[in-house]
Each structure stands twice: as C-alpha cells, then as structure tokens.
C-alpha cells in the first residue's frame, strides 16, 4: 500500500500551488489555446501580452509591474472551470478570457462567487443577461450588433430577401438567433437558413444551396477560416449577390485567406485595426511587427481587456479586486483618459459595452471603412 501514499503525495504536490510573488499585479488569462478556439485565443493572448508589455514599459499599474499567466482551456467548459478556479486560488487580481460562450458559461459563476472581475471576449448575447455583476465584455454583443446589420441590410443594401449562413456553435447560432427576429422586423425574408459545422472543410454544397435560394443578399456568420472557405466556394459557384458580414467576415485574416473572393464583401465591423481610429491602426501596425501577422478583433479585445483592469485600478487608486468590478460597472472609459482603451467605451450595468462601430466594404483585398456608426445610447 506504500505506493498509494506515494501517489497521494505526488498528487497533492502536483496540485498544490507554487508560492506567489507579491510585488506584481497578477492577471490570469484563461483562454482557448487549443481546440476549436485556438486561432481566436492566440490573437487574444498576443493582444494581452502586448498590453502588459506596453503598461510595464510605462511603469506598470500604480507602480507595480503586470504579470500575465495564460492557461489553456482546450475550448472545453470543464477545463475552463478548472483554470478559472486555479486562477482564483492563485490569487489573480482579475481574470481575462475566455472567448467562447460555453466555456464562459461554465466558469462565470466561479468568478462571481469569488467576487472578482472576469473580462471576456464573448459576443453571444446570453451571458450578460444572467445578472452576474462580475462579467464584462470587450466588444459589443450580438444583441447590439445584429440590429445594426438588419438596418444596414434594409436601408443601404435594400435587400428584400436574404440567405443566412452560420456556423453551428454558440457563436454562430447566437448570431443567427439574434438576427432572425431583427430581419423579420425589418421585413426581410429569409430564403435559406444554412447551418455549417465548425471546422468544416468543404463549402461547395452550402454555396450551391445559397445560390439556389436566389436571395438579394447573403449574410455570412462563420469563424475566420470557414468564412474564407465559404467566400472561395461562393465565388466558384458564381454567386454575385452581396455578401454581408459582421466583424469576422471583414477581418484581416479572412481577407488574406480568401484573396480576391473577398472583394465586395460588406458589413458591420465592431473592432478593426483598419478603422479610421489612429490608436487602432497603430495597435494593428505594432501587432503585425511583433507577431508577424495581422491581428483580428480578438487581438484588440485582449489588448483592451488588460487596459480595462488598469483603468479601473488607477481610478480606485488601490488594488482591490472587488473594486475593479465595481468601478468598471457603469463606467465610461475615454480614450483621451486612457489611450490603451483605443476607443471611448461605455460599460453598462450588466457588463455589456456600447461604443462606436463601423460599416465597411472590401475593395481590392483591403477593408475600407465607409461610415462610423454612433453609440446606441450616445
């Protein structure tokens, strides 16, 4: 039975936590670095690392250096929960991430119980509606973005009918479930409702289906590579109707991968390093120099998340975990006050964000911003 004791000892050694350095602000980033969310999570991680480097170069937060520890969630809710639990046990000052809403759903009660702010990258509408005061977004939610799209489709594209292509995960389904009522309100008929799989390789059948639906426009709500694959397949099938998207479809990665198949794509962009905001463009440039590829909106979100913590701490002038959440709730962060936030951001009581966004079009492989949309509640 001796080996039983040895095993137990090894176990407790493995699961006990190393002693922590106290002189740093420890942020724990619980993020998708493998599994389905790896691409998004890597962008976010890089953005957060860049923010920490920027802050530390200028003396840290209230004189303390920032340390970010990344824990991979494997895009799995159970693992995410473990990682958030670990973050709290390790006395994290605030928790960053994750991005996918399943993992967010599995972990947000833990940060709530520990009364610690969790700043996530999710865009699905649901999790800010559960009355959890410790959860914060870094981008506008689908509930805020989709009405803008519907309005754009009705007023600018003047579409009477539309085909909707979405990825069947919490992100895509969430977007689809949010936009369908908006389309109905706007009097736009949905002629095809095409679900696709996460990681799907071939979109030929889907493109044919969309083509045969013969709608005035196509709304594409997929993750990055899938967006690119769909655009290519659509071009092959000779679909000439306007492709409308939300943020992802007009992202740098999609444009790079889809090549000329992306030309003519239009839509709404929440965050973009191509936006006519110098701070965003500068961030995009520095990110590209540092990591060798262009940041998508998740990179921007990761960057902002760290600065949200910084701003709240400096506002309350002390290191109080609970205070971070209290300070962020209902706050307005101005870029003039805190340049790292990149854009003026209003945080609502439930953790939703409100800020300016953009209407854009892809011309010659480049995202061109046409219009800047004001905040919903100016």
């Amino acid at each position, binding site marked *: 039975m001796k080996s039983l004791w040895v095993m137990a000892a090894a176990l407790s050694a493995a*699961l006990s936590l190393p002693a922590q350095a106290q002189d740093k602000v420890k942020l724990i980033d619980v993020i998708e670095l493998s599994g389905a969310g790896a691409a998004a999570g890597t962008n976010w991680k890089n953005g957060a690392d860049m923010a920490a480097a920027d802050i530390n170069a200028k003396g840290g937060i209230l004189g303390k250096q920032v340390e970010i520890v990344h824990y991979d969630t494997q895009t799995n809710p159970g693992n995410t929960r473990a990682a958030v639990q670990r973050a709290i046990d390790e006395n994290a000052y605030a928790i960053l991430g994750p991005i996918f809403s399943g993992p967010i759903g599995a972990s947000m009660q833990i940060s709530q119980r520990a009364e610690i702010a969790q700043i996530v990258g999710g865009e699905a509408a649901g999790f800010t509606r559960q009355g959890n005061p410790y959860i914060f977004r870094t981008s506008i939610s689908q509930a805020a973005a989709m009405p803008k799209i519907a309005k754009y489709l009705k007023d600018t594209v003047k579409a009477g009918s539309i085909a909707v292509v979405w990825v069947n995960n919490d992100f895509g389904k969430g977007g689809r479930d949010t936009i369908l009522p908006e389309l109905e309100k706007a009097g736009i008929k949905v002629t095809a409702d095409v679900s696709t799989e996460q990681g799907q390789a071939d979109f030929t059948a889907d493109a044919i289906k969309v083509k045969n639906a013969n709608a005035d426009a196509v709304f594409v709500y997929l993750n990055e590579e899938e967006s690119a694959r769909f655009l290519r397949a659509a071009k092959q099938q000779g679909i000439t109707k306007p492709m409308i998207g939300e943020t992802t479809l007009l992202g740098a990665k999609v444009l790079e991968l889809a090549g000329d198949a992306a030309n003519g794509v239009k839509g709404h962009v929440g965050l973009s390093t191509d936006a006519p905001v110098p701070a965003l463009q500068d961030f995009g440039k520095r990110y590209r120099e540092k990591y060798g590829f262009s940041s998508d909106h998740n990179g921007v979100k990761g960057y902002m998340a760290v600065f949200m913590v910084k701003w709240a701490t400096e506002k309350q002038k002390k290191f109080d975990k609970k205070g971070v959440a209290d300070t962020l709730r209902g706050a307005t962060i101005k870029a003039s006050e805190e340049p790292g936030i990149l854009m003026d951001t209003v945080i609502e009581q439930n953790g939703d964000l409100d800020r300016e966004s953009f209407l854009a079009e892809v011309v010659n492989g480049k995202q061109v911003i046409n219009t800047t949309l004001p905040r919903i509640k100016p």
Partner: protein
Amino acid sequence: MSAPAAQNSIASRRPARRIDAALIGLLLGAAILWFAPVGMGRYGTYVLSLWLVMSIGVMGLNLTLGYAGQSSLAQAAFMGLGAYATAILTTKYGVSWYAAFALSGLLTFAVGLLLGFPALRVRTHYLAFVTLAFSTLIWLLIRNEQWLTGGVYGISNINRPDFLGIKLFGALEFHRFVVVVTLVLSLKLWWLVRSPWGRAFTALRENPVRAASLGVDTRAYTLLAFAIGSAYGGFAGSLYAPLVEFIDPSPFSLSQSLFLLLMVVAGGSGYLFGPFVGALLGVVLPEWLRFAGSLYLIIFATIVLALLVICPQGVCGLIERGWHALRRKTGGAR
C-alpha cells in the same frame, strides 16, 4: 495502488489474499482522497473531483473493453446522456439529484443494451465503428435539439445535491460526496468482476467460441457488458453535470470518447485500478504539465505515446511487469 492489487484482474494465484489487497486498496484510497484536498485549494479539489468522475466513466469502459473485450467508441456519448438527463431532470423538472442519478443510470443501461445488439452481429473493430457512428449521432442530437438540451448554449446553473440535509455547495463537501459515490461504484464493480459474471466476461473476451461451447450465453453477456459499462458512463455524466454546474455538447464529442479509450488503455485495460491510473494520466497529468506552458499537450501526448510503445498494457501492465521482474530477482537470490 500496489502491484499485487493492480495485478488483480480476475485471475489470481491466491484469490483470497489478492482480493483483500484490492479491497483494502479501494478503501484506503477513498480514505486518503477524503482528506487529500485539505490545504489544496479549490482548484486542486476540483481537479481531484474531476479525476474521480472521469475514473467512473473509464471504469465502465474498462468493464466493456478490458474485461469483456468489446470495444466502444461511445463512452463520452453515454456520459453526455447521463449528464443531460440529470441536468434536464433537476433543472427543468425539479427531480432530486438522487432520482436523476438512478434514472440516468437506467437510461444509459437501456441505451447501452440497444447499442449492444449490433455487437451480436459484428465483432471487434466493426463494432467500434458502429459505436463511433452512435457517438456522433448522440452528439448531433444534443447539439441540435435545443428545445430539450439547450443546444449549443448548454444548460447552466445545475445545482449540487444535498446529503442528509447537508448542502454540498462547497468544493470540499462536493469532493467528499464524489469520493463516496466513486467508492460505492468501484466496490460494486470490484464485486461484479469477481462474481461468476466477471469470469464469464473474461471468457467472452478471451475466447467467445469456447465460452459458448461451455454454456456461456455470449449474447446475454455481451449485451450486459455493454449495458453495465454504459451505465457507468451515465453515472459519471450524472456527477459531471453538478460538478461543473454547466454542460454543453463539447465534452461529449467523439474526440472525448477516443480520449476515454486512451485512458483505459494507457492506465491498463482489464486491471481494477487501471481506470484510476488512466484518468489520472488523462485529467491530472495535463494540469500538472501546465508549468511547461504552450508545449504541455505535446509533452502529455509524447508521454502517452512513449508509455504505450514501451508497454502496450499501460501503466498497470508496466507495474505488473516490474513487480514480476523484482520478484524473480529476489526469488533467485533466496
């Protein structure tokens, strides 16, 4: 976890003594795990609980595969059935967790029985392929039937049960509850594999034709092995739901079924303690390897690969081999 205990599959040279070792091992392990989380923090406690819950699922697969020789690539789907049954019954219909636990077991037992039928027609790898399809079909149902399962959004706010009026809300309390449930289930399995049924399962694995010629109803035992193994998957799922307090389709996908299979084989299939070791490898080792940063999954997979190349019988097989070598050495010296 000592070598002779690990060796106690079913066959043993001195049955009485060996069995006792296995029993003592289980009881002692439970006692250690009862107190282990003290001072470990909630994270460590949570990982321990997760390990035990996965062990239950792996135990079931170990019965099906390790003892009865029927390969299944659907254990995560059964965990999903159990988890969803429990979550839906407790959150939507206010059923007590205990009743939901029993019903989850019953449901997965029945579904396992049904899935066993193709096993009567096709054997070995073909059977695995049928279960592979089944696993993905269940996953699709869970994801697409949103009215029942919450679809991609999952089910949140799953409550933890009470025990005789004691709230099991906290990590430590719930961990202890998981320890007790795991102990009960592993004792049941220990008792099952040493009963005549266990002997018949082994016969089924080693030589079904010969077993049939000795009156072993291979049909009935194949179905039972499947159904009982699946029910353990259901029990594991039924504990998983309140442990994580949230479920969505992702932990019940085909890749998770494959991962559970990996745990059975890497731990040592056909060994009573194999599932605990396998789940330790699969759940705790990656957590522990986190210090290695982004490379931790590569290191984990390399360890598993190396282990299997060196000893295809898994960790328990390796221990057994070492034990034999040691005994031969000391025996020779005497």
